[in-house]
């Protein structure tokens, strides 16, 4: 066997049903670890946690791409092989179907009585008339018919195989749509505080995940401002604290200079703008502070986004840095409870409700010195680089602030005033050109499945010959791919004349035994 021989052998193996089956099960099996281990694409923080808790194991898991299962080379290998196998199977079958549809229905077999469905009767019509009558009946039932002298051959139900092929081709199209999205789509996340806005450009996003072929210059140039944010919670009963609704009132422009439009952003109701979609996926609090430095100047007067540490009652953590404070820069590490209350054991403060019934801030630590922000390295707004900072010792009772309370730093280093709070929405902007193609492919897949399960290809043959007694003997035979239907019996009843005296055999339907698929 030469090289081509081997290649042909390999291709035949790959496109065989057994290989396809094994690959299908492998894809299913390969997905399992993706649900067991945290995945970078969905929850990178959980992956980091895994690395902290068991660094050795994590290192090995990472080498096997178990934190990126669905982007792993071995996963890609399995599904690409599966889809190649699928294409190698489906495309030739599509040609075959095309051939079948164009070819005439096969001629009547010699002995119709041997077919799984068969019947016989006599009629006073001549053989030619009987054949013509049968052709008409079959034609009326939308069979394709051909008359060959004393017999008529008919076939119907190509939609079954067409549906089957459509389903498989739709699966291939779906894969292409997903690929399209991962090449040309992008996703950006940001936290937007009430009263502020953003433009759809990379600079505004806390997190930006572009497809491989996305040019950051090509992002749709819309602008969005969050005018107001409301969150409502259930206030009584066993479900107290469960959110009952979030709303973000937006003003947006399709492009700079375009007319301003308004939209109420809600969960399940994203904003469609210029091909991209803006989603509301979460929310949090942004307490507002006024910081006065040692020289008496206002070094900071704004809202600071705090990150919820738990989603139930929104206990949140945040960091305030004042690069403008002189002579020394200041930094604060704080907690925020929308509704502060005593913990069950009475020793700690906890949040007892996610709504702002008793907004309270606690200063966990205060620093003065150099924030180390001038060295050119980007610094997270949620972390303090304390290498060049000195911790300021705070008196215990001064640490907890209600709205309007001030914290005087010892030694006249400055003042922190908790002036109020705003809310922010966690927004995600996505653009995915594969979205609509994927939907169309999905819809076609279901349509194809239904077609392939509902419609079966079947053939009916009728042959008429002159009998000994002067009457015409008509034989009818039927062949169905898959389980037989009652259609054949209906056709037989329709064909048989009222004056038929012969014993008409009908197809055997005593037990609902589905016959296996009939090989052609």
């Amino acid at each position, binding site marked *: 066997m030469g090289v081509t021989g081997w290649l042909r052998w390999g291709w035949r193996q790959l496109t065989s049903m057994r290989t396809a089956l094994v690959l299908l099960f492998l894809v*299913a099996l390969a997905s399992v670890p993706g649900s067991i281990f945290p995945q970078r694409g969905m929850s990178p923080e959980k992956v980091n946690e895994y690395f902290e808790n068991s660094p050795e194991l994590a290192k090995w898991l990472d080498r096997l791409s178990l934190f990126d299962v669905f982007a792993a080379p071995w996963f890609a290998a399995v599904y690409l092989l599966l889809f190649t196998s699928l294409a190698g199977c489906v495309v030739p079958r599509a040609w075959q179907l095309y051939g079948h549809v164009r070819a005439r229905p096969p001629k009547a077999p010699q002995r119709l009585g041997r077919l799984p469905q068969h019947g016989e009767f006599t009629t006073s019509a001549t053989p030619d008339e009987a054949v013509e009558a049968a052709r008409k009946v079959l034609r009326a039932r939308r069979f394709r018919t051909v008359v060959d002298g004393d017999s008529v051959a008919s076939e119907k139900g190509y939609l079954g195989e067409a549906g089957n092929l459509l389903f498989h081709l739709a699966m291939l199209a779906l894969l292409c749509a997903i690929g399209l999205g991962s090449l040309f789509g992008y996703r950006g996340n940001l936290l937007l505080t009430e009263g502020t806005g953003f433009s759809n450009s990379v600079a505004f996003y806390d997190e930006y995940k572009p497809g491989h072929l996305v040019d950051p210059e090509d992002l749709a140039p819309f602008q969005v401002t969050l005018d107001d944010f409301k969150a409502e919670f259930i206030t009584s009963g066993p479900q107290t604290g469960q959110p009952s609704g979030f709303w973000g009132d937006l003003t947006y422009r399709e492009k700079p200079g375009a007319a301003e439009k308004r939209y109420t952003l809600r969960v399940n109701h994203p904003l469609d703008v210029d091909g991209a979609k803006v989603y509301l996926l979460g929310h949090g609090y942004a307490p507002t502070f006024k910081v006065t430095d040692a020289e008496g100047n206002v070094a900071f007067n704004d809202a600071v986004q705090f990150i919820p540490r738990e989603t139930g009652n929104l206990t949140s953590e945040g960091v305030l840095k004042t690069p403008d404070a002189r002579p020394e820069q200041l930094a604060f590490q704080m907690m925020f409870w929308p509704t502060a209350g005593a913990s069950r054991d009475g020793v700690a403060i906890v949040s007892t409700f996610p709504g702002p019934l008793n907004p309270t801030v606690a200063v966990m630590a205060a620093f003065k010195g150099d924030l180390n922000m001038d060295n050119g390295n980007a610094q997270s707004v949620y972390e303090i680089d304390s290498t060049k900072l000195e911790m300021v010792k705070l008196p215990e009772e001064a640490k907890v602030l209600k709205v309007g309370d001030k914290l005087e730093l010892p030694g006249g280093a400055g003042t922190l005033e908790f002036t109020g709070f705003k809310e922010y929405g966690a927004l995600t902007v996505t653009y995915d050109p594969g979205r609509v193609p994927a939907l169309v492919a999905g819809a076609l897949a279901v349509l194809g499945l239904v077609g392939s399960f509902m419609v079966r290809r079947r053939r009916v043959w009728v042959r008429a010959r002159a009998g000994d007694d002067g009457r015409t003997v008509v034989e009818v035979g039927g062949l169905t791919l898959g389980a037989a239907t009652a259609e054949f019996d209906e056709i037989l009843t329709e064909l048989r004349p009222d004056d038929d005296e012969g014993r008409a055999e009908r197809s055997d339907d005593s037990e609902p035994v589905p016959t296996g698929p009939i090989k052609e």
Partner: protein
Amino acid sequence: MVDADLAGLSNNLVLGAVLLYVVAMFGYAADLVSSPTRAERRALVGAGGPELPQEEPEKARADWGRFAIGMTVLGWLLHAGAMVTRGIAVERWPWANMYEFVVAICVAAVTAYLVLVFKAKAKFLGAFVMVAVVIGLGAATIWLYQEAGAVVPALESYWIAIHVTAAIIASGGFTVGFVATLLYLPAARREARKAEGEPKPSLLDRLPSANVLDGLAYKSIMFVFPVWTFAIIAGAIWADEAWGRYWGWDPKETWSFIVFAIYAGYLHARATAGWKGRKAAVVSVIGYAALLFNLVGVNIFFEGLHSYSGM
């Protein structure tokens, strides 16, 4: 907001349905035990019937069967009533948490069974379907129970009516297919053994042939496989509205895909030489195990976006 009386009525209706299903289960069992074996049935037909002295037990059998089906229909009415009253009590679609979801799947399973009784003479499945449904409802009431209440904003979408309903119908159908497959496996083994010699009599002789059981399982699964596919696609559309992507390999998505792949494998395997029969049936059993794991296990073991279960 929540009508406590109606919610209480709903709970009582579930209990009533369970009781009737248990009664039906015994009815089906009595029907099965008193039914003739296939060999006897053939003998009856062969002897040409009406004058045979077996008239009496034949009549008693019919009554057990009719009684059991009656109890099932009655139980189904209470069961469906429980779902409807729960929905009215909470003013939303009554399948937004695990308890409601399992109750609804059991309704779907009984519905699928009743359809098969009237369309394909599948009464013999009754006892086994009742066992599955009673276990399901029992587990829902004991471990998964959730007070009637409002849902989080993420679930307030008309897609819950489309996506979850499709998932429920599909799960109900898969359950009936699973029951038929579980009967097929020993029946097929027995028939194989029978070909070698005459084994001891067994209850299996009173069930239809392995071929019929296999056909029923195939029909149920073939019917609901597109429904499951549709449920996944509807879920993807909803995910695109709610989470900003139509597919993100959330554990629930991953496992619904696994279930899809395994059942797709089953449908192909059944028509493939070397996989037909036992192997294909085992694939379908694994598919159902994955379905159950997706339904319950994923919510318990994994953190994901489908965290509506309240567990």
